[in-house]
């Protein structure tokens, strides 16, 4: 029983961390129509940033500033935002393919840099030597994991609330206006490039937060954690949940993460021995089929975006009478 509960805690923690990344992507793709092909790079920037800033000092590479944990986490988020700012500045005014290709390129380059630059982040061996915050008080066991889950859930709810307020604000309306018809928005004097860039950065900072939490949870990050498959998983979560709908995004994250871990467990348990080498391939095909299948048969996702009329054309008095 306690085994099951502690597994559920573990599962929910990872799913909740990934939900935060899906929420960030939802702001970019669901609300602004920005295609981020390198989610994992911003996730990785948050993760590496947090560990480098908050870790104990290590021989041979950068890091070990032992910053107060919340500051380290903020630093990781800032690193993700900075990366988004640079990529966005170069591509946001161009055809949308450029952003897709460049963000994809950032992810390839980021993974490559982390794998090779040993002086920067430990190379292929990854970053160790991070003390989990409040480790001394809460120990290492179940209590710690339960408290960490609560911490992640609080941040997930805070992110959710923040985004709900943001997309209901004039800024959110502007984002959707640009997504639907950029020319029309520009004809009203809106600086569409700046608004889109802002959305890209905010979304990436949120994805960076997710990465920072992920690295904190494992107290370790390596190039193996920032492979392109994570980008696909996060997309599949958003597409299944329903782009444009934050609740759908969170639901999609839990659903896909459950399906992913269940399929991994099932394959490792029931696949014949000679097929074990290929279970990864089978899982990748499944996630590819989920993405393509959803786009073909239910592009709006399981929980579609509710289109809202921000302001009714009728005079206020008439609405009040109803």
């Amino acid at each position, binding site marked *: 029983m306690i085994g099951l509960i502690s597994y559920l805690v573990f599962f929910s923690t990872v799913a909740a961390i990934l939900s935060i990344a899906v929420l960030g992507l939802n702001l970019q*793709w669901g609300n602004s*129509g920005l*295609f981020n*092909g390198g989610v994992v790079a911003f996730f990785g920037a948050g993760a590496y940033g947090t560990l480098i800033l908050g870790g104990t000092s290590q021989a041979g590479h950068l890091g070990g500033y032992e910053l107060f944990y919340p500051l380290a986490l903020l630093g990781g988020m800032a690193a993700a935002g900075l990366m988004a700012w640079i990529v966005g500045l*170069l*591509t946001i*005014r*161009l*055809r*949308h*393919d*450029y952003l*897709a*290709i*460049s963000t*994809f*390129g*950032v992810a*390839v*380059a980021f993974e*490559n*840099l982390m*794998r*090779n630059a040993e002086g920067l982040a430990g190379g292929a061996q990854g970053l160790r030597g991070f003390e989990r915050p409040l480790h001394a008080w809460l120990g290492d066991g179940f209590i710690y994991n339960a408290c960490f889950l609560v911490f992640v859930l609080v941040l997930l709810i805070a992110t959710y609330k923040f985004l709900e307020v943001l997309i209901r604000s004039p800024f959110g309306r502007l984002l959707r206006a640009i997504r639907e018809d950029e020319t029309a928005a520009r004809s009203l004097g809106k600086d569409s490039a700046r608004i889109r860039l802002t959305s890209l950065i905010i979304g990436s900072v949120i994805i960076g937060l997710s990465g920072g939490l992920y690295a904190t949870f494992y107290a370790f990050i390596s190039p193996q954690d920032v492979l392109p498959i994570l980008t*696909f998983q996060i*997309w599949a979560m958003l*597409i299944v949940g329903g782009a444009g709908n934050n609740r759908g995004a969170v639901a999609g994250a839990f659903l896909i993460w459950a399906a992913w871990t269940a399929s991994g467990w099932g394959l490792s348990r029931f696949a014949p021995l000679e097929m074990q*080498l*290929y279970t990864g*391939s*089978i899982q*990748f*095909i499944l*996630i*590819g*089929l*989920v*993405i*393509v299948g959803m*786009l*073909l048969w239910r*592009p709006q996702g399981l929980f579609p975006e509710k289109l809202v009329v921000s302001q009714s054309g009728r005079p206020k008095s008439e609405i009040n009478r109803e």
Partner: protein
Amino acid sequence: MIQHLVDGILVGSILSLGAIGLTMAMHMLRFANFSHAELLSIGAYCALVFDGVFKAIYAPLAAAIGPLSLTWALALAIVISMGITGGSAILIDRLVFRRVRAKGGELSMVFASFGVAMIIRNVLGLMFGLQVQLYSKDIVFAVVLSQDPFLLVKPDQIFSLVAALIIMFVFHLVLSRTTFGYSLRAVAENPELAQVSGISLIRMITLIWIIGGGLAAAAGVFYGLTNQVNPVLGRDLLLPIFAATIVGGIGSIYGAALGGFLVGIASNLALLILPSGYSPAMPFLIIIVVLILRPTGLFGEERH
């Protein structure tokens, strides 16, 4: 230095072949097709299969041509593979892209192409195994072309370069001398106006997939011939091919051809300064430099 330059040109010709098809599809269908590089893998594996088939049917075909490791069987297999890969490209379009297109949303196409790439890559891995395969187990020694500067080139590399150049030249003749070429350029220029003049858009899209698939297959086989065949071949070449289209300007066929060579040369020259571990990241640096200096690429037009 010279060695890097020559290697860059050799790799560049392969990238050019891939980039030409990609830039056409991107221009016509308005989406970044992340599954295009998987067509190179399909082509490479297809040639591997037919190479074996031809050798089994008629043993003398297993003889190597001159100093190359390329056999007559493989040479025939390349032609078959170009056809089949072109057919696969159409099939993928019918099964996925056309339907997603009909539902609207250019960006959904990008997602779909990622999904398709994932499926193709891993299905190939399941079918042919994750291990590296070679067209020929014979060891072909590189030939020393000159002692000073020291220059080593494999005969297969020369063959790939010449064959790629011939294919591109033939395609150039088709574009500039035939009615089909005119129609293609007309559709690229202005789809509505081209349709008014009686050019069928659907037929043009089909042709673009055939040509793009065929060129990609040739590129895949040439890559396999000069390096090796494995299921992640497409994944590894995706970013360099994208970089080539951006260098040339998205939509420009001649730009893509030139862009391929430039990316190949630049990536190889960079190895003079950077450790070779960084070479997968080189195309990204090239993309960034182009976006800073000249976002529209060499021959691209301003279009949002």
